[in-house]
């Protein structure tokens, strides 16, 4: 028995003395506000105060807390600064998904107790041990610095920066993520994964184990899943052949202690290792899957222009990028429960309807017998679009009749989850003597790993995006997705486009120098404008705000360039890069449906099936629906994403929720408004109010005998691409340009970022606060891609070998929002989720080149690579 003074109350905890404090708090005391992101001291999500000092609860044995004061996020509101800190986080948008928030709040509490008015450096030092993957940290810093000056929020019209509507539970520890709310009697499921990249295996008699070993033979329905309806190539439990390190071959199910006690040596599995295929060796080698005899999953192409105009300058180069991990701070977690012939699956996801379809097929039961109830999602970024635990816990609960839960460890999450595709790119570009682009040729192999996942999407998106948002008369592009024995590459913010943007923008820098043009002006000269036709043959009539973005950056460009150090050991550089990004699926339907109801008792409900993974769709869609309806956002009750309660809004990917679901929400609002006005016999400009359960139209109460309903659906108009990549792949595009200013240490090759200025054409910022949060978070991930992130299977399966940016790695970010209205979008809006990340890495590489003259050929630009590039230059 250990005695703690827990959030001010004397508490006895009956757990073994070596139990981690984090586990004791969560499992014994029921305080799940303390999060576990790594169990190794690397992420800080478990930060609590021990006698007022911040500690990682996962590194403190319970016995060392004996007799001491432990403060968790649940006790924060009662601390001197606690409530003010929570309010500041709320109003600054410092919590997006919210999984890091308890740790951030506790670290900030320690700081503020000692230093009530800290400066930025002190905030960075104090919060440096807590990782956030969503916010880019800037809003968090601002919240801690401006604690007392939070202004009251605006009402919530379109264009208002209101705090997120689902934000409060993220601040007091009450939010329930995938690992937080399973029933106490749930069995545990522990996946057994291949330690080899490529191996045959056989599973012998498992009856000696203290837990049940589920294998492929136990799957009632189809033992396969995959993103595409016709590609279900990844088995829930592999059958005799493991195709990557992390491939799941079986799962132990039983009481937690029994499941955890099974040692690797106890498992009746024999392995026969096979030589693994890499992107270099796979094409033409013995097929990994019979379906793709040459190991080429797909090839995407684009041909535009018959002949290239005469050129004065050419530039060419080769670039390679590595695997990048999503590194959401919440590892995959959830649970399932059987109710008669129906299965309920709870947990973190970005795509509940796809989960439903997969679970139904794996169990061999009708879709209607599967209900997906998403928990809060502690970050996704594309990585929680593919199923992970869902089919496994569903099968286990189905067969045992008991609730079954699973929580991936960090190592397991890293090994098993999808990654950003590594790319190997060769590109050539040319321009005339005046600097006008004449041609662009691009070929790339994308390592799509062991299973298809989103590989076809990447091969589809890259050829149409790789020339960037520019006028190029002649383009030839090709991207292949190559199957290998690496982790499956899937969807990750930008679907292959960020890798391509590196090649494209680096070539522009070379051409600008060759023509003697300023690098920013070179981009202005060549930028797409309204009225232009893209290389897919799409006429862009509206909402092409790239030139405005570049013009907004121009004064910053000149100031930053003038300030940079050009002599000495630390050399300054400023880089610029642009991007465009098609919103929604590529040339494919991706509809969304939203619903609003008004009950006779005046209860107004917004039924919204779009999963908010921290990006803010719950808030933004409500703002849109309320505005279209003509009532304040505060009047809405919410029924959020649950496949039994909400209509299919499609998945949270491809930056599509604001644009596609937003249009559906706008239509739903307009439809309900129409119903109301018809009943009230009022004109289109009538004023609606709702108070005390009574709806008034132009101040006249409107009595209802039945529930009124407004449903809206939207599917963006696209035309599928033909074999030459011609068509209308997207209804609209986001545009952006970013500047990066940095210094390079010429002796060490280290990079110090000083400032990033980002100009983004978002059509219309429905909620500027949340848009800025997306931009800052995307930039932080772009910094990681450029400078430090590289997943190596077997070698970086934790968060101290796989490095993501900390609070000290993200410089001051200035965001400029350009609003070139998109007539198709809700109130003119487009999307922002992915665009924010795309230009950051090329802008950083452009700045390194500016500082040193060296062109990096491989990202991440680790110091030793930078130094090599400087030497070779």
């Amino acid at each position, binding site marked *: 028995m250990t005695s703690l003074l827990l959030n001010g109350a004397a508490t006895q905890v009956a757990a073994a003395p*070596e139990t*981690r404090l984090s586990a004791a708090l969560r499992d014994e005391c029921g305080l799940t506000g303390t999060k576990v992101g790594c169990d190794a*001291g690397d992420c800080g999500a478990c930060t609590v105060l021990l006698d007022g000092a911040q500690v990682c609860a996962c590194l403190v044995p319970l016995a060392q807390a004996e007799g001491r004061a432990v403060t968790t996020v649940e006790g924060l509101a009662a601390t001197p600064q606690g409530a003010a800190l929570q309010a500041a986080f709320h109003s600054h948008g410092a919590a997006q998904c919210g999984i890091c928030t308890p740790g951030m709040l506790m670290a900030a509490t320690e700081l503020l107790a000692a230093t009530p008015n800290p400066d930025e450096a002190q905030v960075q030092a104090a919060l440096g041990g807590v990782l956030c993957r969503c916010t880019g940290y800037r809003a968090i810093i601002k919240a801690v610095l401006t604690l007392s000056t939070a202004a009251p929020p605006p009402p919530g019209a379109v264009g208002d920066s209101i705090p997120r509507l689902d934000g409060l539970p993220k601040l007091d520890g009450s939010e329930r993520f995938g690992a937080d709310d399973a029933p106490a009697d749930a069995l545990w499921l522990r996946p057994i994964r291949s330690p080899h990249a490529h191996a045959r295996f056989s599973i012998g008699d498992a009856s000696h184990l203290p837990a049940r070993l589920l294998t492929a033979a136990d799957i009632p329905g189809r033992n396969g899943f995959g993103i595409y309806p016709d590609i279900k190539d990844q088995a829930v439990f592999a059958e005799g052949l493991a195709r990557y390190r992390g491939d799941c071959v079986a799962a132990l199910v039983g009481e937690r202690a029994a499941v955890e006690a099974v040692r690797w040596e106890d498992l009746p599995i024999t392995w026969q290792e096979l030589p693994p295929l890499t992107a270099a060796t796979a094409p033409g080698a013995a097929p990994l899957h019979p379906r793709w005899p040459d190991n080429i999953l797909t090839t995407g192409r684009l041909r535009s222009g018959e002949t290239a105009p005469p050129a004065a300058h050419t530039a060419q180069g080769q670039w390679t990028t590595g695997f990048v991990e999503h590194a959401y701070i919440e590892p995959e977690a959830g649970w399932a429960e059987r109710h008669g012939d129906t299965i309920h699956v709870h947990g973190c996801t970005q795509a509940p309807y796809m989960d439903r379809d997969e679970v139904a097929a794996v169990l061999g039961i009708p879709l209607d017998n599967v209900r997906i109830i998403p928990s809060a999602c502690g970050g996704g970024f594309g990585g929680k679009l593919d199923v992970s635990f869902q089919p496994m816990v569903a099968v286990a609960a189905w067969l045992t009749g008991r609730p079954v839960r699973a929580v991936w460890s960090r190592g397991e999450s890293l090994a098993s989850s999808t990654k950003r595709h590594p790319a190997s790119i060769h590109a050539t570009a040319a321009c005339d003597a005046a600097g006008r682009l004449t041609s662009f040729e691009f070929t790339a192999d994308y390592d799509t790993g062991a299973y298809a996942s989103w590989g076809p999407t990447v091969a589809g998106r890259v050829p149409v995006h790789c020339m960037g948002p520019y006028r190029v008369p002649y383009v030839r592009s090709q991207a292949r997705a190559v199957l290998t024995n690496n982790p499956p590459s899937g969807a990750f913010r930008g679907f292959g486009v960020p890798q391509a943007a590196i090649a494209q923008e680096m070539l522009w820098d070379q051409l600008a120098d060759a023509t003697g043009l300023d690098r920013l002006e070179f981009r202005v000269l060549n930028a797409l404008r309204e009225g232009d036709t893209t290389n897919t043959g799409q006429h862009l009539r509206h909402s092409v705000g790239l030139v405005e973005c570049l013009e907004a950056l121009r004064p910053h460009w000149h100031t930053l360039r003038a300030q940079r150090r050009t002599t000495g050991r630390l050399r300054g550089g400023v880089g610029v890069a642009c991007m465009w990004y098609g919103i929604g699926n590529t040339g494919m339907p991706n509809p969304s449906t939203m619903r609003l109801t008004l009950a006779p008792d005046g209860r107004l409900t917004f039924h919204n099936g779009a999963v908010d993974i921290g990006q803010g769709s719950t808030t933004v869609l409500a703002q849109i629906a309320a505005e279209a309806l003509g009532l304040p956002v505060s009047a809405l009750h919410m029924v959020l994403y649950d496949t039994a309660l909400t209509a299919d809004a499609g998945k949270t990917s491809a930056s599509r929720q604001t644009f596609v679901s937003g249009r559906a929400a706008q239509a739903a609002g307009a439809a309900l408004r129409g119903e109301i006005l018809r009943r009230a016999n009022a004109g289109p400009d009538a004023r609606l109010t709702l108070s005390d359960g009574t709806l008034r139209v132009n101040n006249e109460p409107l009595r209802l005998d039945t529930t009124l309903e407004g449903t809206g659906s939207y599917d963006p108009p696209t035309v599928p691409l033909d074999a030459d990549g011609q068509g209308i792949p997207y209804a609209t595009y986001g545009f952006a340009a970013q500047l990066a200013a940095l210094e390079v240490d010429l002796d060490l090759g280290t990079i110090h970022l000083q400032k990033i200025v980002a100009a983004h054409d978002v059509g219309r910022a429905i909620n500027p606060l949340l848009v800025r949060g997306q931009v800052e978070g995307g930039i932080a991930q772009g910094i990681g891609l450029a400078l430090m992130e590289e997943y190596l299977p077997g070698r970086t399966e934790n968060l101290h070998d796989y490095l993501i940016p*900390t609070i000290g790695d993200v410089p001051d970010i200035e965001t400029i929002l350009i609003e070139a209205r998109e007539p198709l979008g809700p109130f003119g809006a487009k999307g922002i989720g992915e665009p924010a990340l795309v230009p950051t890495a090329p802008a950083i590489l452009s700045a390194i080149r500016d500082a040193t003259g060296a062109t990096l050929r491989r990202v991440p630009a680790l110091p030793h690579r930078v130094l090599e590039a400087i030497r070779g230059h």
Partner: protein
Amino acid sequence: MTDIRYLAPPTLDEAVRAFAAAQGAARILAGGTDLLVQMRNGMVHPGTIIDIKKIPEMTSITEAADGSFWVGAAVSGAVLAEHPRFGKVWPGVLEAINLIGSTQVQGRASAGGNLCHGSPAADSVPAMVAAGAVLTIAGPNGRRTMPVEAFPVGPGRTSLAAGEILVGFTLPARPAGSGDAYLRMIPRTEMDIAVVGVGVSLTMAGGVVTAARVGLGAAAPTVLLVADAAKVLVGSKLDDAALNAAAAACSAACKPIDDKRGTIVYRTKVAAVLLKRAAAIAADRAQGRA
């Protein structure tokens, strides 16, 4: 759920007895920032945990009349930072310990644990080597001392005999005109493992170096004392020739590995760069300029 024995003896003698009695099945616990991670990974499965944080000798910092310091093996970086004098006398050692991990980790991690864990990249060790720290070790056969550089014998391996516990560090008295510094190179701004780390301690008189020690981390299977680098610094005014020679000696001492954090060529070059930079800081401190 588990059958681990957890002991928190109040005296060193009891700890030594319990440790010996467990016959290799026990682990010492200081801050736990390495041990708990290893247990979680299944790399170690101790039958007994011996928590040394209740032993006064191992958790105390004392400055003796002669100016030497005793730092108990289990003292955390955060506690060391609060000592009114230690950071003034040994700023480089203190910096090195408080480069370990994050604020959360610094509140727990000890120099003793850092050393006993045996990582060639342990941040506090090159600074301790430069400082000329002497270890006190207690075991079933009594106490012994050894210079810190003799302690690590390979990655994860130390010269502790079975049943021995590291009790603490003695840092020698500081002559006037002394200063030390530690620098490491990491790709990320914080919370990262050193690609190379260099500790330098100097004593100077009239602008001339009269004594020097150099410790080098993450550049060989163990942290190294680079005597050749120190030798060329002594007697010099830290002019370019002397610094270049010391930097070359540092590079020559490197036997690094190629890994994801850095290549052999890179580590060898960085060792030289960091030597010069750390020496400059140590010299400023020795001469009261910083």
